[in-house]
């Protein structure tokens, strides 16, 4: 692992400021994905900002009757919440379908949404990977793996997003809230939060990829779920998808 300096932030705004002030900084919450990648030196942040003490570990009811899930609510806490189990069962099902009890106790909602692909060619530093090293190519496309994109890939990348929770969030039409260093708050529909390789601006020049970078760097906010009653009345199509996901998870 490469050496890094470390600090604890105590508010979302300060965490966002610290990220802007330190070149090569990363947020760390549960650390279950980031530390794994740091040990392999796929990630090598020069500075870690511990965001576990931002106070974003609550699930609050919104005025509209939905839920606001803090970025630091653990997977276990989110899956266990009585309101989630009753009104958004697909979310609990998706969370407990992944990882292990130990990992779910550590992993957070924000970190889960931002986890990196498990493409074996991304993990193998001997292989060309546009995600790990933009412009180096993609060894996965001509390679051998059963877990990569059959649809939605591009000529530059066929990595897939590994999480289950985000799929449930997408079914439920969640919204992601972020904050920038200048304090500006932004909401991003979950459908726009993760993008298909074919829709990326460019894999060579990531500086043009503002939306994605903003989201990665400054996601110290919340995930919002709509009012379940509103959802059921108006999102009939998606409710059907929700049910099919439930059946798969069972």
């Amino acid at each position, binding site marked *: 692992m490469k050496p890094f300096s470390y600090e604890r932030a105590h508010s979302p705004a300060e965490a966002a400021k610290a990220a802007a002030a330190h070149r090569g900084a990363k947020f760390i919450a549960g650390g279950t994905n980031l530390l794994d990648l740091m040990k392999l030196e796929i990630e090598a942040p020069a500075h870690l900002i511990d965001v576990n003490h931002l106070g974003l570990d*609550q699930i609050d009811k919104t005025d509209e009757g939905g839920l606001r899930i803090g970025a630091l609510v653990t997977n276990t806490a989110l899956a266990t919440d009585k309101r989630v189990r009753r009104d958004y069962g697909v979310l609990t099902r998706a969370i407990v379908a992944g990882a292990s009890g130990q990992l779910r106790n550590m992993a957070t909602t924000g970190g889960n949404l931002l986890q990196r692909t498990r493409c074996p060619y991304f993990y193998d530093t001997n292989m060309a990977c546009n995600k790990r090293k933009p412009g180096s190519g993609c060894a996965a496309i001509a390679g051998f793996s059963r877990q990569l994109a059959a649809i939605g890939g591009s000529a530059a990348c066929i990595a897939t997003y590994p999480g289950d929770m985000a799929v449930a969030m997408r079914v439920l039409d969640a919204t992601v809230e972020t904050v920038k260093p200048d304090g500006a708050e932004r909401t991003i529909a979950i459908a726009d939060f993760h993008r298909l390789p074919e829709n990326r601006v460019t894999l060579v020049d990531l500086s043009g990829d503002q939306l994605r970078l903003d989201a990665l760097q400054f996601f110290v*906010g919340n995930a919002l779920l709509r009012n379940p009653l509103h959802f059921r009345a108006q999102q009939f199509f998606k409710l059907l998808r929700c049910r099919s996901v439930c059946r798969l998870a069972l």
Partner: protein
Amino acid sequence: MEKSGIFDMSRRGVLAGGAATAAVTTIPGAATARAPTPAEPRSATVSLTVNGKRRDLELDTRTTLLDALREHLHLTGTKKGCDHGQCGACTVIVGGRRINSCLSLAVMHDGDEVTTIEGLGTPGKLHPMQAALVKHDGYQCGYCTPGQICSAVATLGEIADDIPSHATGDLTAKARLSNAELRERMSGNICRCGAYSNIIEAITEVAGEKA
């Protein structure tokens, strides 16, 4: 675009904590440099309460909780298996919940309470879960056993706390103990010798005694 309320939340947290001015606390030794030399190791002071005893350490920021326990506190009961959060040999209990100590930095646990296998029982006074694994032959080589036991103790706590699992049928009913539940919940602990059946029997016996 609606206001998100992020700052409402942070204001509440700040007021509750009474720390309105302490926005960012930097660990000593990592204080000033904005673009650190990549090769330069950084150290930090970390205080852990391990098995009820406070331990103060000066550690490289890269030190995992697992390495802090084993290499610095010489609590070698906790084992290093894969070192990537997949095998569960490093399982310890932090703040009442089981975690993979290999995928957590020690510096992130400053002020936390950690329980390792050494804190559950001693050779002269075994924890009921330890005694049950001995009785049911719940191991062969024994390398995964400390992690299995810490995980099993915490698993019974998770069922008691009504935390659901992938084996839970009705999400709105209280979590129940069953063979399928225990197998699913213990799936983060790998036993290369394949003692799973005996491990589950041991946990079931302890759970029965508790009930």
